């Protein structure tokens, strides 16, 4: 029972599925952003797992790319939460079912 690539892939798949469920079902915009963070974490875990256990020629690539992933996640969180705050200032709520001004 040694730990291998498949264990990490399964953990990442569970994280991705839970993040997907969060994004699909949440009404609160901050909750949806939390789901996106889970999905990005799952992707980073896959990169690192392949760089350690996969038969790849360039090991460093799998260690460098998650840093870019974390950068994108940081930018996404900053801009996304700024948008959430702007929506809260204009509507008084961040419920995604109430912010439907474009539909009317």
């Amino acid at each position, binding site marked *: 029972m040694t730990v291998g690539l498949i264990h990490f892939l399964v953990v990442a798949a569970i994280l991705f599925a839970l993040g997907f*469920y969060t994004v699909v079902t949440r009404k609160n915009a901050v909750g949806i952003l939390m789901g996106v963070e889970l999905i990005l974490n799952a992707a980073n875990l896959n990169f690192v797992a392949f760089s350690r256990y996969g038969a790849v020629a360039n090991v460093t690539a799998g260690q460098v790319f998650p840093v870019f992933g974390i950068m994108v996640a940081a930018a996404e969180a900053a801009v996304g939460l700024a948008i959430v705050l702007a929506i809260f200032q204009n509507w008084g709520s961040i419920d995604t079912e109430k912010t439907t001004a474009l539909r009317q």
Partner: protein
Amino acid sequence: MFLELTENILTTVPLSFHIFMALASFTVLGACGVAFSQNIVYSAFSLLATFAGMVGLFGFLSNDFLAIVQLMVYVGGILVVILFAVMLTNKISEVQSSNPSNNIIAGLCLMGLLLTVLVTSVFSYDWQTREPGPYEPTAAKIGDAFLGPYLINFEIAGLMLLVALLAAVVVARKEVKFIEDNEAQDKG
């Protein structure tokens, strides 16, 4: 009896497997809290558990630099910003049911379908693997890669962070005061 059983498990299964299972269950339980909790403050703190578990998993995968980056950026940065947003957008009285879900049944069905597809594809594909080497520091290699083959990506990522910073400030500020200042100037 119990001691023998424990000893048996500890000798037949290597310690690294137990460490991995502890870290993975910590991570997945935190993610479950994010997905299923009805209180958004509990969701945010479950996200803390997920990020802490991810730090451990990165360390387990012999990537010390990324573990520290994850700790600093996610736990020290993103989680604090998320908690600020939670505190600024919810009234204390509503916090008990502040994170409602809709279409729970459809969401669970979709999640089960997605998980089945992903896990069956993971198990059915014949992954080309290798024996992992010994644990060694990675920061120097990553630094060389950033200033070597990935230099353009590195510069563009820095530019993107600057743009995101400016965009966050521009989107989140209140413009009311600025307009009043302009009107005051026009009258004066």
